[in-house]
């Protein structure tokens, strides 16, 4: 039978971001998936080199609106590694609280969208309804519902005053009850079981081959979490565990995310206790200048590990800034999870890794300036880079 191509996107109501999927189908079975991107490339790494360290935080926050703490988190870790800056405990607690609140709102968002993709709009509406109180907390603490502008080098821009703690606890209790509700609705529903169990399975070996991260990897039995493996902020100071599931299907991914929300709530509660012990106003240390150096920082975003690399020369801005977002690793696992499924199951398999295209679009193509023709693509650039490494290696061997 002839192979048919189904184009999804780039501007389609399934996902709010622009991306183009080409499904090569034989009847109803998807034989291959192609992914075209570039609709979202904004040249952030290049802009970053023209910003001061303080301004870069506002920029990296806008790499992705949903992980708008994870990128500043990783960048702060990176620059603080260069400057060898030690944070006060209060700053660490505040950072972890913001990071975990973000994880809760992001996972609720995913649960909602996954429900929407499955045709369960009730789950979508519920999950997003209970996400609102988290955003209200953000508004109370930082002044904005998204893009919190909370971090700076050496700590936080704002303190969480102790009189805000009771209200935060109240909202957390409410979210815990609602998470129970959502957990019950998803874990016990036979239709959701039928649609998600055994669908979009990614085996452990494939996860390791593709280098997938975050809940996608943890749902397939790969036990990785930057918060535990390379501790930062207040994570070593509190007691929590990494959720790992073995099945690797969509259901396992949903389960990992829902159980992680409980862990996040527990982390925040412990951080709030810790906050009470530290004096108010010690939420940052003043930093004069950043020395020359090379730094690497990572943070566990709701979707996996966010990695930032920066080179500084002692001036007020980074001279090179490289960002790698988790979706960049996670999206290619479509080749494993989506192929061989029916078209309808592919949708949820694609959505299960919680893809974030805004994060991913770091790579551009090189175009010929005069003719406008594409001269190099990603593969060519990688070949170019590998050739250069070979040349250097040969030179050193001589």
């Amino acid at each position, binding site marked *: 039978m002839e192979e048919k191509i189904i184009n999804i996107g*780039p*501007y*389609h*109501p399934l996902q*709010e*971001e*622009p991306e183009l999927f080409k499904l090569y189908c034989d009847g109803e079975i998807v034989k291959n998936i192609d992914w075209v991107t*570039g*609709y*979202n*490339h*904004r*040249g*952030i790494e*290049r*802009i970053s080199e*023209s910003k001061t360290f303080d301004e870069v935080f*506002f*920029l990296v*926050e*806008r*790499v*992705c*609106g*949903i992980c*708008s703490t994870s990128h500043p988190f990783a960048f702060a870790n990176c620059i603080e590694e260069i400057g060898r800056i030690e944070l006060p405990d209060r700053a660490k607690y505040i950072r972890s609280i913001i990071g975990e609140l973000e994880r809760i709102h992001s996972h609720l*968002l995913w649960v*909602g969208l996954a429900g929407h993709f499955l045709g369960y709009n009730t789950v*979508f*509406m519920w999950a*997003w*309804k209970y996400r*609102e109180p988290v955003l209200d907390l953000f508004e109370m603490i930082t002044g904005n*519902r*998204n*893009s919190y502008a909370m971090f700076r080098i050496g700590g936080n821009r704002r303190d969480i005053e102790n009189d805000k703690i009771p209200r935060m606890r109240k909202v957390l209790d409410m979210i815990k009850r609602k998470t129970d509700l959502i957990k019950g609705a998803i874990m016990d529903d036979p239709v959701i079981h039928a649609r998600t169990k055994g669908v979009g399975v990614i085996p452990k070996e494939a996860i390791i081959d593709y280098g997938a991260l975050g809940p996608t990897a943890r749902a397939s039995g790969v036990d990785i979490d930057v918060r535990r493996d390379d501790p930062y902020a207040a994570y070593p100071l509190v007691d929590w565990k990494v959720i790992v599931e073995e099945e690797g299907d969509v259901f396992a991914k949903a389960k990992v995310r829902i159980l992680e929300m409980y862990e996040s709530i527990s982390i925040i509660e412990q951080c709030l206790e810790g906050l009470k012990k530290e004096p108010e106003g010690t939420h940052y240390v003043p930093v004069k200048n950043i020395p020359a150096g090379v730094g690497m920082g990572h943070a566990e975003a709701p979707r996996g590990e966010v990695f930032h690399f920066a080179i500084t020369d002692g001036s007020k801005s980074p001279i090179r800034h490289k960002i790698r977002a988790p979706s960049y690793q996670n999206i290619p696992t479509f080749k494993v999870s989506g192929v061989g499924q029916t078209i309808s199951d592919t949708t949820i398999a694609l959505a299960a890794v919680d893809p*974030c295209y*805004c994060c991913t*679009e770091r790579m*551009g193509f090189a175009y010929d300036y005069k003719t406008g023709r594409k001269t190099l693509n990603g593969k060519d650039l990688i070949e170019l880079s590998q050739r250069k490494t070979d040349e250097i290696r040969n030179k050193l061997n001589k």
Partner: protein
Amino acid sequence: MALKDYVFKKSLWVFHFGGASCNNCDIEILDCLTPRFDVERFGIKLVGSVRHADVLLVNGSINVRDKDRLLEIYRQAPKPVLVIAIGACGCTGGIFAESFNFAGPVDKIIPVDAYVPGCPPKPEAIIAGIVALINKKKAEKEVEHAA
């Protein structure tokens, strides 16, 4: 034309074009549909194709690759169509205006009827923008009648 003017008074159907955005505006637009804000009670509905839409919501900075596609989508929209630029990036380019890949704010590419600034604008602001636009259209209509 007269029929479309009548339609613009209520129950606007919206098509969402997310340019090179950071996702925040997109999420806040979706948020408008969920229970707390629930714009569907005003008949405002997100539709899958611009050919069904009365309003084109554009958010995010428009990069070189998006520009032609935005023009094409605008061409496909049944006229008259209302265009709302959402967020700092949609209005001016915002923090990405200095990017090498920036193709100009939305109003340099297609005519824009309303702007909703903010990074990201709150759902209340987006609803207020749409209401302001409806009121503007009503006022224009009355002026036309009086003339």
